[in-house]
């Protein structure tokens, strides 16, 4: 780690002001990505602005048709929330599949989607559940938010405050974990909104993406056989030590079917 200054923000406005004053300052949420990068000396912020004391960023709200999670809500809180488990069990289950206990107790939804790791789970939830990401400046639809590997629509000084998920008729997330890191080699979230459906895939490509052909088939009939024969091209998918692109492509179809089965249960 290099030397840095540390500041605890009392409000989003104060955090925003801090970012404005120092171009090399960074927000600190759960630190599960940022601190690790700093320890490896891959990241060198001049100041860390800790969002941990801002209570309004930790709220969970369930309203008609939406579940809204404050940016600083930890994965463990979402996984254990009775309200989320009732309104949108797929989301609670997804949060519970992240990392290990320590990571879930520290890591936050805001940090996760701001980071946009190509193998992270929450981006699949955002895209698959048609989420809206609220910042201190505006509201951004998930479809416009994720821009590929570690890239998002966030501008300098923009702070995520909450994420609102649309509640579908049913949904499920199936994750094929990397045996080493436990991130997703492939994760597929399917959601049935009645007149529409969403299929979002994480882990497989440089960023989270949807599969229009599967969505169309699922609107016609929300059943595993609807997606069973839809092959995903391997081109453009990730190939690494843990899985070649063709294996990932194959897994997408397998997991999509399993997700549909799980959603129907």
């Amino acid at each position, binding site marked *: *780690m*290099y*030397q840095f200054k540390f500041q605890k923000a009392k409000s989003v406005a104060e955090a925003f002001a801090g970012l404005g004053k120092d171009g090399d300052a960074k927000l600190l949420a759960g630190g599960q990505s940022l601190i690790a990068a700093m320890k*490896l*000396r891959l990241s060198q912020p001049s100041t860390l602005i800790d969002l941990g004391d801002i209570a309004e960023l930790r709220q969970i709200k369930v309203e008609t048709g939406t579940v809204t999670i404050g940016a600083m809500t930890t994965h463990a809180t979402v996984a254990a929330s009775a309200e989320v488990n009732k309104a949108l069990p797929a989301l609670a289950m997804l949060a519970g599949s992240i990392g290990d206990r320590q990571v879930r107790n520290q890591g936050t939804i805001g940090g996760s989607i701001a980071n946009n790791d190509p193998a992270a789970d929450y981006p699949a939830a955002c895209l698959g559940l048609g989420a809206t990401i609220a910042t201190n400046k505006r509201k951004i639809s998930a479809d416009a938010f994720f821009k590929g590997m570690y890239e998002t629509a966030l501008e300098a000084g923009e702070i995520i405050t909450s994420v609102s998920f649309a509640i579908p008729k049913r949904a499920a997330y199936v994750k*094929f974990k*990397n*045996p*080493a*890191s436990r*991130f997703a080699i492939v994760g597929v979230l399917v959601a049935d909104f009645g007149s529409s459906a969403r299929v979002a895939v994480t882990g497989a490509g440089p960023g989270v993406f949807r599969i229009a052909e599967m969505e169309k088939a699922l609107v016609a009939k929300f059943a595993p056989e609807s997606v069973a024969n839809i092959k995903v091209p391997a081109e453009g998918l990730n190939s690494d*030590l*843990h*899985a*070649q692109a063709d*294996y990932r492509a*194959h*897994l997408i179809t*397998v997991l999509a079917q399993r997700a549909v089965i799980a959603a129907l249960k």
Partner: protein
Amino acid sequence: MTKFAIGQTVHRLEDPTLLQGKGCYTDDLRPQGAAHAFVLRSPHAHVLIRGIDTTAARKAPGVIAVLTGADAKADDLGTMPCIVPVKNHDGTPRGETPRPVLALDRARHVGDPVALVVAETYHAARDAAELIEVDYEPLPAVADVYGAAQPGAPLVWPEIKQNIVADLHLGSKEAADAAFARAAHISKIELVQNRLVANPMEPRAAFAEYDPETDRSTLHTSSQSVALLRAHIGDIVLKIGDKLRVRSGNVGGAFGMKAMMHPEQPMIVWASRRLKRAVRWTGDRSEGFLTDVQGRDHKVFAELALDKDGKFLAVRATVYAGMGAYLSQFAPMIPQSVHSMMPSVYAFEAAHLHLIETVTNTVPVDAYRGAGRPEGIYVTERLIDIAARELKIAPDELRRRNFIKPSQFPYTTAAGLVYDSGDFEGLQAKALKEADWAGFPARKAASEARGKLRGIGLTMYVERCGGAAPPDSVALKVNKDRVLVLPGTVDNGQGHMTVLKQMVSEYLGVDMEKIDVSQGDSDANPFGLTGGSRFAVVTGTAAGIAAKEVVDKGMEQAAKMLEAAAADIEYGDGDYKVKGTDRKATLFDVASAAGGIEALHIKNTGALTFPNGCHIVEVEIDPQTGVTRLDRYTIVDDFGRALNPMLLLGQVHGGTVQGIGQALLEHAVYDNESAQLLTGSFMDYAMPRADDVPSFHTTFHHTPCTTNPLGVKGAGEAGSVGAPPAIINAIVDVLHAKKGIKHIDMPATREKVWRALNG
């Protein structure tokens, strides 16, 4: 009888301390005023070092010193020793790979130490290290153990032709060739022994203190042998002899890796002596991946010869064994055990190994749990399954036809080892029953009904434990109310203290509460080395000899006190008693009167022991994803006798989990062009976790060992020997049935299994 004699389950006495975080590991020693060291390492696998400019680093805030290989040379430091001589088959000695503690003009693997920065804080040292300018000239590199031995491969050492540092034959080639010429059937395999990283929970660490009064240094370091380190660092590298004291406190796992001296240990003592100041260094996980000696790394071509009745005639192999960039302390010896274990538990006429040891631009390789024995057993037990399939003989039946029989002990194997005991046929029969081998077809049908594929795999194993000079010893001291045991071995988490107290309690008839164990101080403890599953056998026996010596030494004093002739006194239950009377004196009374009794110079080389057993595994494979689940896991072991059944099971489970790691998950993967380690963190290197591991069904089929008075056989590595062949045999059972596939290499990852099923 004392309360907790040998053979009883005594809960680990170590646990209350360790589980409450009250243990003391090397990194817990943080005295005020100690300086911090950071090692700058080569980011390249193979480079010439044209120059090192440390000017800016020396001036950086908080920096005390910046040392390089040139300084070490100026101070006349010796090189890191490899203590194993090897004679090539042409009579020449093996190649030499002299390794300075800091690279001089060449770095040969990523992580090779290039400079040492000592500063007031760790961060100051690390910041300063970034200011060091090294003029590197990259050279071509090679990482693949087999590729390195091919003509035209980049040379790790210009002095070593084709990177072959040793080339030898073990066993009679003529006898094996003759048997193969007569064979009715020959089965073949080509396989890889995947390279592994030890990854103990506690990383390597070194902390050196200097006493100007005596000019002595004390090195605190996580290790398996303070005596070996004292000798190698003190006598060979730093040439300060007894001016070095080495101590180990609690050790959080070692697995063979911490038996070896690593460059940082002499480096930190040297820096501390130059600066006349305490200096500390603790490696982080990344450094562990890049610099801890690794395990395995073989490329193997092997064959099994059988006669027309399925009788084994001979086994032979050509093994390319990776040594890494430098020969580590014991490295060239480790793969030689492949030969000694190749006959496994079977009657062979001949066993021959052509061993080619190669250097590559990778971290040195040395002993890792099992150290050559898993590699040898894997070759033969894989070949047997292949032969069984080719000859359409059931794998258990083929093994049964070839077991060494109980009536044949002592039995000299085709590799020249003398097995003392065992009941391999009886043990296999018990394992088949415990595993419900006969019920497998029904379970297979049930799996298939759920869309899953089920396979079963069996292996026998045996390993050579204990023995091997130098001897382990134990010193024993009795005063007026306590017994002090000083073993030469160092506990790495096994529970040595508990078992040693149990043993000495029984030997002397003294309650465990009155016994203290003190380990890990080269000034106080006699010689010893934790490794090779030696503790129970070698240290345990030495403790017995020491106890007898203590009792004998007290006899004269007891005779005086009891006013009887020594010949009329017997010892038992902690008392000297006059035979046929109720007159007695306790050991402590006698010791008190004698001003203490000591047995200090016990030596026990320890004859070899041959633990053996059978692992039977059932896997369930998801054909759509290649996910392989270990559904049933049965182990039957012959350890001669259990000293503490609970701790024994702990060893079996731990070893087996490491074997599961090797079979399914773990792999140190190097890029073959750049020789960069691609799996350099837990993000990419998969360790086995609780949810990767089934519940083990474990029983014993002990036959007492005849080569030591305790009757025990080594148990620490057994699981790591049995698991890999059993698991791969089970997976190949599926792959062969579905696709006619003969072999799959470790680690049998999900993707590999999926490709095998869908290729």
